[in-house]
């Protein structure tokens, strides 16, 4: 009994030790030395890692780099070096990223017994500290132009301080044209003065004044004048924190008068931020490939917030869909060449055409702006009234208007009234009115599109026919060229099949040219194009048949050791399968092409030839005893094809 207990205890002890040992082993830090691919970067890496649940988790120092002298001297080399450290798969500690694209004019100099190759190109770098995946402390991003191994100019530089991923204190960003300097609050919101001034000093400079993230005003200074543009200075309603990006600038512009918008540097402030963000994104992409990362700087601002309720959202959606349909119709009418000619002589067509122009200008154009704000997601950052004032500066478009026409330099006009059930009404909400205008524009254009439908359709048909005929010529040319190029380089039996395909194509073309009626001609053109395309495919397949055959023969040959001769000999294996292909199926395919080719069986033949080839190749390593027995008796190609397909579907 005691012995039994001891035995059990011992067993338990063994299991316990193994049980503890496995996780211990899993936590062991290991080192990797070798090639590593990170996204598009492929280099030599040295790093420490541990295995957690069979996953490689980076832990400890990390280094990956690449440079290739050979490539540099020959053409151009891209080099990079990423150096830093990870903790449990998350970047942590000082990091440096360096990317370079260099070429050399094969100039070298010898310094201290070392050959130095002078390089020119662009060197980008990013360095700073990362704390658990987020930038922390000062990050400097640089892009420099290198000439003969010397920095010749700085193309981009940004210095931003972070605290746990949130931008802090002062920052500066400059590219070749502008410098931006500004500061943040502790929570990352823009604060105080942000100055944007041009590098060349010729242009005006701008100062953006923020308070708690809300832009108060913008001061524009140039040599002889300064102007103050009021932004959200007096606003004290609901606000929302968003990123300072192109969308924010657009939302801001809705507030401003067109004059003010024209004064400001066109988007150069968000452009700088965008360039900066792109560089952070580049680093984030690398870190995300290796582990967890949140390496994106977010420059936050506050904007006035006028939320849309769900009903409003639905109305905006329907506005977008009306706009899309209407703009497509209007474009097809305005660009229709027949209508464009007719409108010069026919008063009614001129009336229709000009009406569409009017609807596009007065209805679709303002709606287009709304659609673009919606896609930027900034509809909620401006009051509805301001929005209306911005898109309709001269008030709502009229639903009844005199349309003017000029025929033979005689002006006339005719009253137009939009045939619609939609109406705008001052008592409706702004969003409702916008939706109504979108629908009115659509209804108006749709009605005219219906009137000119036949003209449009006819033109469409003619265009299609012209395109199809062009395609027919293209397809036939490519077929003839292909056959001419290939027919001499393949055995005669395949060349003959190709010649037959060419002959058949020319017969098909001839048949098409005999079709007279316009309606039938379109149908005939469509089927002729399809047929020629298939013939092209078939001719490619036929040109490969010689290779197919030799590949099958090669693949069904084994090298056998003959002990009596002490030599290796080729042995044909599974002869029934290879001979079914070479003696029955291949002649059958060629015969089909030469004797009974039609547009209808072209695809079938092309697919059968390819499928048969692939099946035969695949059968080599399968157990085919049964199939070989069946093939022994069978001489009928269609039955053999069926057998091969049966075999195919079974596996």
């Amino acid at each position, binding site marked *: 009994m005691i012995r039994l207990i001891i035995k059990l205890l011992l067993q338990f002890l063994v299991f316990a030790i193994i049980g503890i040992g496995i996780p211990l082993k899993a936590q062991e830090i290991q080192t990797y030395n070798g090639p590593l691919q990170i996204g598009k970067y492929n280099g030599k890496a040295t790093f420490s890692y541990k295995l957690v649940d069979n996953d490689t988790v980076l832990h400890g120092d990390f280094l990956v780099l690449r440079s290739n002298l050979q490539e540099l001297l020959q053409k151009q080399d891209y080099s990079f070096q990423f150096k830093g450290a990870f903790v449990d798969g998350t970047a942590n500690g000082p990091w440096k990223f360096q990317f370079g694209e260099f070429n050399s004019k094969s100039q070298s100099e010898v310094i201290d017994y070392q050959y130095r190759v002078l390089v020119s190109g662009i060197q980008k770098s990013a360095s700073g500290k990362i704390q658990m995946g987020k930038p922390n402390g000062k990050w400097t991003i640089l892009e420099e132009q290198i000439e003969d191994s010397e920095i010749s100019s700085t193309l981009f530089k940004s210095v931003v301080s972070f605290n746990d991923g949130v931008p802090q204190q002062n920052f500066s960003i400059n590219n070749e044209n502008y410098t931006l300097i500004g500061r943040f609050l502790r929570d990352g919101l823009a604060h105080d003065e942000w100055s944007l001034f041009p590098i060349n000093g010729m242009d005006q400079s701008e100062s953006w004044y923020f308070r708690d993230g809300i832009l108060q005003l913008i001061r524009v200074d140039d040599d002889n004048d300064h102007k103050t543009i009021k932004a959200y200075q007096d606003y004290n309603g609901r606000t929302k924190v968003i990123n300072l990006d192109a969308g924010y600038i657009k939302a801001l512009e809705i507030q401003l008068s067109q004059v003010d918008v024209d004064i400001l540097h066109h988007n150069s402030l968000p452009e700088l931020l965008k360039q900066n963000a792109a560089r952070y994104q580049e680093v984030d992409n690398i870190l995300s490939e290796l582990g967890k990362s949140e390496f994106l700087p977010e420059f936050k601002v506050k904007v006035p917030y006028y939320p849309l309720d769900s009903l409003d959202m639905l109305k905006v959606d329907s506005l977008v869909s009306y706009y899309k349909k209407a703009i497509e119709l209007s474009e097809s009418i305005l660009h229709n060449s027949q209508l464009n000619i007719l409108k010069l002589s026919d008063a009614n067509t001129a009336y229709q055409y000009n009406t569409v122009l009017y609807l596009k200008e007065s209805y679709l154009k303002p709606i287009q702006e709304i659609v673009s704000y919606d896609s930027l997601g900034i509809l909620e950052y401006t009051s509805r009234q301001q929005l209306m004032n911005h898109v309709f500066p001269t008030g709502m478009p009229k639903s009844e208007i005199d349309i003017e026409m000029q025929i033979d330099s005689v002006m006339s006009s005719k009253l137009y009234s939009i045939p619609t059930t939609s109406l705008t009404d001052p008592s409706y909400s702004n969003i409702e009115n916008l939706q109504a205008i979108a629908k009115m524009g659509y209804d108006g254009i749709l009605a005219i599109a219906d009137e000119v439908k036949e003209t449009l359709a006819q033109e469409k048909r003619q265009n299609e026919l012209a395109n199809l005929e062009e395609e027919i010529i293209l397809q036939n040319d490519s077929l003839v060229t292909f056959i001419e190029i290939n027919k001499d380089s393949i055995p005669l039996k395949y060349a003959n099949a190709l010649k037959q395909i060419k002959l058949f194509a020319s017969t098909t073309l001839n048949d098409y040219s005999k079709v007279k009626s316009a309606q039938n001609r379109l149908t005939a053109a469509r089927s002729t194009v399809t047929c020629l395309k298939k013939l092209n495919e078939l001719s490619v397949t036929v040109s490969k048949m010689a290779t197919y055959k030799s590949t099958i023969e090669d693949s069904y040959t*084994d090298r*056998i050791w003959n*002990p*009596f*001769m*002490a030599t*290796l000999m080729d042995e044909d294996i599974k002869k029934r399968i290879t001979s079914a292909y070479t003696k029955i199926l291949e002649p059958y395919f060629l015969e089909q092409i030469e004797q009974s080719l039609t547009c209808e069986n072209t695809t079938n033949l092309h697919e059968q030839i390819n499928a048969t080839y692939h099946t035969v190749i695949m059968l080599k390593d399968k157990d085919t005893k049964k199939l070989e027995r069946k093939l022994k008796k069978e001489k009928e190609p269609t039955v053999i094809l069926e057998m091969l397909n049966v075999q195919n579907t079974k596996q």
Partner: protein
Amino acid sequence: MKSFGTYIIKGLFLFCFLTAFHGISQEDEPEVLPEYSKYKDLTTKTWINTYGNIRIGKRLFWDAQTHLRLAETEDTPFVGQVAQVYNRHAIGYIHSKYFNVRLGGVLRLNFNTDEASTDRNLVPEWRIWHQYQFAQALESMMIYHRIRIEHRWTQGFAENSEYIFRNRWRYMFRMKIPLNNHKLKPKTLYVAPEAELIMQSGKAVVASPMEDLRLTTTLGYILTPRLTVAAGAMYSQGQDLSNGGFFKHSWAMRFHVYFSPDFRKVKNKLPEIHLTD
């Protein structure tokens, strides 16, 4: 694998040397040599040989040979009557395309063809044999050097006769020359001239070390990589064991079938079937 192979070969060489030099001491026995060497009557023989070579592993094979040898008698001139039935087996090792060894045993059944004899009709003969074959390619032909060493225990037809132990030392030079192809491959007719010298030693061998010199030419046809047939003629001569002054000589017709099946499963065959190339 290579080093293992080398060990096997070294071992085999050692074995054959040890066996070879053991007990080459001979007792003196009065022997009356003729004044001039004398040829005995020319005899004819017919040999029908099958050579099986069955692959049992990546480098190992089973050599299975069965030979039927007929010797001329007064009643059955030319073709002759059954003289010996051979069962020769060995396990072989393919070291490379150009070298292989094998080791095995032989049970030869000797039939008494002397019609006047009243002794036993059938006696067994036992052998242990090992062989080292070198092959080399020369232009389109192949050349082979074969060293075969046999340790044989024979006995006479007389009732209660003792086994005699002898060693046989055989060297054969053979060529296989393709006639209708640039190399030995299926559907090839080839001609194979060969010369083999068989020496012997042992207590019973006093003045007749040259047991046999065989000069053969066969014409063969490779049907498939696994099946070859050949036929030819052999002239042989050698000293009579009992008196080295007398030489036996004979002409033999030889008919050979060579087959080398491989029953291994396809998945085991590939890619080892190609050996090292």
